[in-house]
């Protein structure tokens, strides 16, 4: 036992309840790892001992086998890359339009009044609802996938950016103007960097939405990609392919999130 400070014993006040410290980094990692292994083991066992039909949920080992097979055939990464690329193109396009437009709209009440009806109309539309029109407009090629991601993430991104500009301290704008900043400078040098933390956290949410968009687009009409992989697995009753597709989506989204966070830390190193 650790020695308590002498004063504690002498004081009449009841001792503070001993608070358990946060679990330290290394032990947290071990706990998470053990939990992960345990879940996989129970799952594997449940299928092996016949509690679960492999057709409904294949064992982890079967999924790994399927992955190895596809790796040998050289098709595995093709699907991952196809989906990731579509997400990136659509997402980057949407951001490139939404960030400047959002900053402009956020700082100009007149333009906000003009765009408000269109935005209010677009916002509630789920990306899925754009699929028929986009097929009509763009066919089933790559641009149709980009457009689905774009349409699904553009309106919410724009709203995030506009909301972020509202949080900018007006005193900073005043200070900038006092130092000679014109309207353009205020937008580029003050509003944009000041709202960047909020914009980035909005974009993180949008990245998740962009993935949902691309998968739904691929489920409907595609020749490669993770959504296609799942759909194709279903057609051939290959449940292991279906689950492999799901696992790959999850891992890829996690990986992009890690990259995004690293980027965020670099860009926002001035934040407390």
């Amino acid at each position: 036992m650790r020695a308590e400070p002498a004063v504690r014993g002498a004081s009449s006040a009841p001792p503070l309840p001993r608070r358990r410290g946060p679990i330290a980094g290394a032990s947290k990692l071990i706990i998470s790892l053990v939990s992960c292994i345990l879940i996989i083991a129970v799952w594997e066992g449940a299928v092996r001992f016949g509690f679960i039909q492999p057709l409904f949920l294949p064992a982890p080992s079967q999924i790994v086998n399927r992955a190895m097979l596809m790796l040998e055939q050289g098709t595995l990464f093709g699907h991952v890359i196809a989906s990731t690329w579509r997400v990136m193109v659509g997402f980057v396009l949407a951001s490139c339009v939404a960030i400047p437009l959002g900053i402009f709209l956020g700082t100009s009440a007149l333009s906000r009044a003009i765009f408000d009806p269109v935005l209010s109309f677009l916002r509630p539309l789920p990306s899925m609802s754009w699929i028929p029109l986009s097929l009509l407009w763009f066919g089933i090629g790559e641009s149709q996938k980009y457009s689905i991601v774009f349409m699904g993430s553009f309106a919410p991104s724009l709203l995030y950016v506009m909301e972020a500009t509202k949080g900018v301290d007006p005193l900073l704008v005043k200070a900038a103007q006092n130092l000679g900043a014109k309207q353009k400078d205020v937008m580029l040098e003050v509003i944009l960097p000041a709202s960047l933390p909020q914009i980035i956290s909005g974009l993180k949410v949008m990245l998740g939405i962009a993935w949902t968009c691309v998968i739904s687009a691929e489920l409907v009409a595609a020749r490669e990609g993770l959504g296609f992989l799942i759909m194709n697995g279903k057609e051939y009753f290959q449940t292991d392919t279906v689950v492999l597709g799901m696992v790959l989506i999850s891992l890829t989204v996690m990986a992009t999130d890690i990259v995004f966070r690293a980027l965020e830390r670099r860009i926002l190193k001035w934040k407390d």
Partner: protein
Amino acid sequence: MEGLTSNAVIRFSDVSKSYGSLLALNDVSFNVEEGEFVVIVGASGCGKSTMLNMIAGFDQPSNGRIEVQGKEHSGVNPQCGMVFQQYALFPWMTVEDNIAFGLKMKGQSKAERRQHAQEFIEMVGLRGFEKAYPKALSGGMRQRVAIARVLANSPSVMLFDEPFAALDAMTRQVLQEELVKIYEQQRKTILFITHSIDEALLLSSRIVVMSARPGRIVQDIQNDLPHPRNAEVQLSERYVELKRHIWGSVQAEVMRSIEGAA
């Protein structure tokens, strides 16, 4: 009195300002000559910030004229550099980039800006902190950056809106001394708002006392205390006399504003 021939840097002629039905300033006329260090004192809410905001061009008078260097301005006028109580530094910029912001707006190249900024970084004693972000600085250091940022932009008038009010007493004293030094070196025209009569007496060449709202000028005193205004001066008869004099009218106005609010 100082008639049409004076080369006033700032000229208020019958200036009134109302916000809706609230009359903030009532018929204020006064001039500030080049090189004066004018400190404005008055009860809170009497329109001191409003005056500075109108000089800087953030706001326009409802009636009357405000001329800066002989011209009326309809927008923000960077010739009147403002130092805010809340520092208003750009948190995403380093000390150096904050100080060079005005130069960037003027279109100076990066190398020019850096060289130019360095002079002011040293003037306010921030050498070694060029690459620090504001989050890493104490309140006193942040206010130094804000002062250097305005100085680097070489305005003809500097406006200070209670710049040291949020600082602890020690830091405040150090900054007051530094500001006096900078004033003596640069000979800028300064308008400075404070709640502290001591601060007013230490810094100013002239003290303007405002009435309770609606603000008017009730006293306009030349501060003839000798420099440097060290402990000895602060214990002198003249200091105490001036302090009593100013305190008398400030107190009367504060009482009036409290009664007015009740």
